[in-house]
C-alpha cells in the first residue's frame, strides 16, 4: 500500500514564524502536491512538483514556497506565517501526471497561526 506521511497532525505557530510542513511518500512517485482545505472552499492547490528540484505554482501559491530535494520528500514552507494561513494542509502523491490517476493523500496537518 502507498503510504504518505506528514510530519505533524496538529501544529500551532505564532504570526511571523517560519513554518515547515514535511511530506514523505514511500512509493517512488514522481508527482507530489500540497493543498490547503478550508470550510466551504474545498481543496485548493498550493504547489506541485513533478520531479526532484522541479516545482510548479498551483492556484494559491502566495505566501508559500516548496522544496523537493529528494524524490520521496516534499516540503511546504510558510516564510512568515500569518493568521489567514490557519488551515488544514494536505499532501498527496501520484505516479502519473496529477490528473491522470489516483492521488494518494497523507492524513493532513491542521495548522493554527496565532
Amino acid at each position, binding site marked *: 500500500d502507498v503510504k504518505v506521511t506528514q510530519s505533524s497532525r496538529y501544529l500551532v505557530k505564532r504570526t511571523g514564524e517560519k513554518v515547515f510542513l514535511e511530506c514523505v511518500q514511500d512509493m517512488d512517485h514522481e508527482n507530489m502536491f500540497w493543498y490547503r482545505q478550508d470550510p466551504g472552499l474545498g481543496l485548493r492547490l498550493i504547489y506541485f512538483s513533478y520531479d526532484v528540484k522541479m516545482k510548479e505554482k498551483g492556484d494559491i501559491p502566495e505566501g508559500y514556497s516548496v522544496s523537493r530535494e529528494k524524490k520521496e520528500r516534499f516540503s511546504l514552507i510558510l516564510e512568515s506565517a500569518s493568521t489567514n494561513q490557519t488551515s*488544514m494542509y494536505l499532501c498527496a502523491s501520484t505516479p502519473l501526471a*496529477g490528473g491522470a490517476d489516483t492521488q494518494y*493523500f497523507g492524513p493532513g496537518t491542521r495548522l493554527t497561526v496565532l
Partner: protein
Amino acid sequence: SQQGEEDPQALSIQEGENATMNCSYKTSINNLQWYRQNSGRGLVHLILIRSNEREKHSGRLRVTLDTSKKSSSLLITASRAADTASYFCANPTGGGNKLTFGTGTQLKVEL
C-alpha cells in the same frame, strides 16, 4: 465559480437508504474521480471513471458520467453509518497535470 461543484452540499439519510451526490464540471476531461474524507483526515480515492465510460461500479458505489452535460453522480447503495463522510469529485485541469476538486458533499448516515 469552481470546477467540480457538488450537489447537494449536505445530505442526511437513514441507514439502509441510498445516497446520491452530483458533480458538475466545466472543461473537457479524460477522467473524473471521486474521493472520500472522514472528518479531520486525508482523502481516500474511491473510483475513477474515464471519459469513454458511462457507468462504473465498485462494491456499493456506482458512478455515472455524462460528458454531454459535464456531470457525474455517485450513488452509495444500502448506506451504513460508517459511510458518514465528505465526498469530493475531482477532474484534471492544467493540461492534465493537476486535479481540481469541488467543495464536497457532507453525507451523514443516521442509525
